[in-house]
């Protein structure tokens, strides 16, 4: 396995009982990449991640993390990885500061300035007992815990859960800075916009199977949005007929609703001829992407 691969899996399979689990996941994440692992809840994201960190063992296939085998060299992997679980609890009786100091000592010491800077940027109050913190504020401490030792690889399971939008923005900056510093980031999410914003590539997982790996740029050109335009006065139907990539056009007086695949350019230029009061664009949900981009059964697009 080449050393410039941060993570690689070959037909990684883990089954529990009948439904949950992952099936033959094969993927490769390059060092320095930000990779989004996208899929609905229960698709197998957490199972894959926990296999990479040797919390659970695969039934078949194998994984390599930073060139090491999780079942052989778990301590070395853990030393170089920062991990945020999807579901976790912190030690409620500790303050954030004590909690982070405990984990810093388990990692052989961490520069306190890094902890303070992360806490400051994420607006995390480290002097409060964790038990009295909201879900979002606990998530911040989990994030600091994952970032504070500047790991070569960050594995983050649904990192923005419960974070308010401003803090999500800060998190996205942290991810991009990590990439700038040569760190690799593997993050899972069930929301597309987040993945689009920070990731270089995205793997889409559904029902335990990796159904596609795409460049985010590619995904954006295929992405389908629902757009609603409000005009100052009624507009003629012809103005929006036959625009490439624009479908399902409905015109009700001064309101135009349509679906746009890929670039918004044509639609915006067509609309610009009239007085536009408001534009609403809805990001598609994952299910829509699967249905439109990958076809009803999850097959590749035609």
């Amino acid at each position, binding site marked *: 396995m080449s050393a410039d691969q941060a993570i690689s899996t070959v037909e990684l399979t883990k089954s529990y009982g009948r439904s949950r689990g992952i099936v033959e996941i094969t993927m490769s994440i390059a060092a320095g990449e930000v990779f989004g692992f996208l899929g609905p809840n229960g698709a197998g994201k957490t199972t894959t991640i926990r296999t990479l960190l040797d919390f659970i063992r695969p039934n078949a296939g194998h994984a390599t993390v930073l060139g090491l085998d999780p079942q052989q060299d778990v*301590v070395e992997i853990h030393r170089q990885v920062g991990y945020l679980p999807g579901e*976790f609890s912190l030690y409620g009786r500790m303050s954030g500061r004590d909690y982070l100091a405990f984990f810093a000592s388990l990692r052989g010491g961490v520069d306190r300035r890094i902890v303070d800077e992360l806490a400051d940027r994420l607006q995390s109050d480290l002097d409060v007992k964790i038990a009295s913190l909201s879900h979002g504020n606990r998530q911040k401490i989990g994030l600091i815990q994952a970032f504070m030792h500047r790991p070569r690889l960050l594995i983050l399971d649904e990192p923005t859960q419960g974070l308010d939008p401003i803090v999500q923005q800060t998190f996205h900056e942290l991810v991009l800075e990590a990439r700038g510093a040569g760190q690799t980031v593997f993050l899972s999410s069930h929301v597309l916009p987040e993945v689009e914003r920070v990731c270089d590539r995205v793997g889409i997982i559904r029902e335990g199977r990796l159904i596609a790996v795409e460049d985010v740029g590619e995904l954006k050109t295929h992405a389908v949005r629902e757009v609603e335009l409000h005009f100052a006065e009624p507009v003629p139907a012809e103005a929006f007929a036959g625009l490439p990539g624009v479908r399902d056009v409905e015109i009700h007086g001064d309101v135009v609703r349509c679906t746009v695949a890929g670039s918004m350019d044509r639609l915006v230029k067509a609309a610009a001829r009239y007085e536009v009061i408001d534009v609403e664009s809805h990001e598609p949900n994952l299910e829509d992407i699967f249905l439109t981009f990958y076809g009803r059964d999850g097959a590749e697009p035609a």
Partner: protein
Amino acid sequence: MIVFRKTLGDQRRGLIGWTIGLVLLVLVYMAVWPSIRDSAPQMDAYIKNLPKVMRELFIQGDYGTPVGYVSSEIFGQLGLLLIVIAGIGLGARATAAEEETGTLDILLSTPVTRRRVLLEKLAALAVQVAALAAILSASIALLGPSVGLQVALGGLVAVTVSLILLGLAFGSIALLFGAWTGRRSLAIGLTTALAVAGFVIDGLSKVVDWLEPARFASPFYYYSANDPLKNGLDPWHALALAGLAVVAVALAAAVFERRDLTTT
């Protein structure tokens, strides 16, 4: 020893509670000692009339003497029970509580092995069981003389060591079940069932002939058969209890290292 120190720190409130409980227990036993001693002849007559099963299960030794009283009432009943319960509770909590509450994933994502976490939790258990048994015995040694109850220090040390080993053995079994199932209540339930069975077998085997060979299967036999308060520690019995703990811990480490850990 970072996990060890944190575990002790987390459990210090519990330890303080147990300490208060044990000292109060000894206080009560010491307070009633003078009246027990004075009514020893009537007690003996009463005990003689009890069915043999009752006598063997609940009354060991000679009530009217300090050694008999302390040995049967404290080290044979409530004091024994409390130390075993403390050991089971701490053992069941060791890894299973973190697994159940969902703190274990982050803990194990650091460069500490599963085995190391388990062993440091065990060390915290051992220190606490030893401290509690020592507190129990120290209370007897310190409070006894004020009511004229004196037991030889050597015997007290012997029974304390024996009690620590018994608490460690049950604590290790609970730790094994907790490491195996990831569920604290299951670990407590299974270990308590084993302890009750062991206690009953140890008592009944003295009166029920066909149960007699089974008494070697009960940890309580190795704890009390030699009556350490009176006769000192039997090294083979001590070794049997220590061996039981070692086997349980080795199994726990093996199971815990190989298992799929659960999430909340």
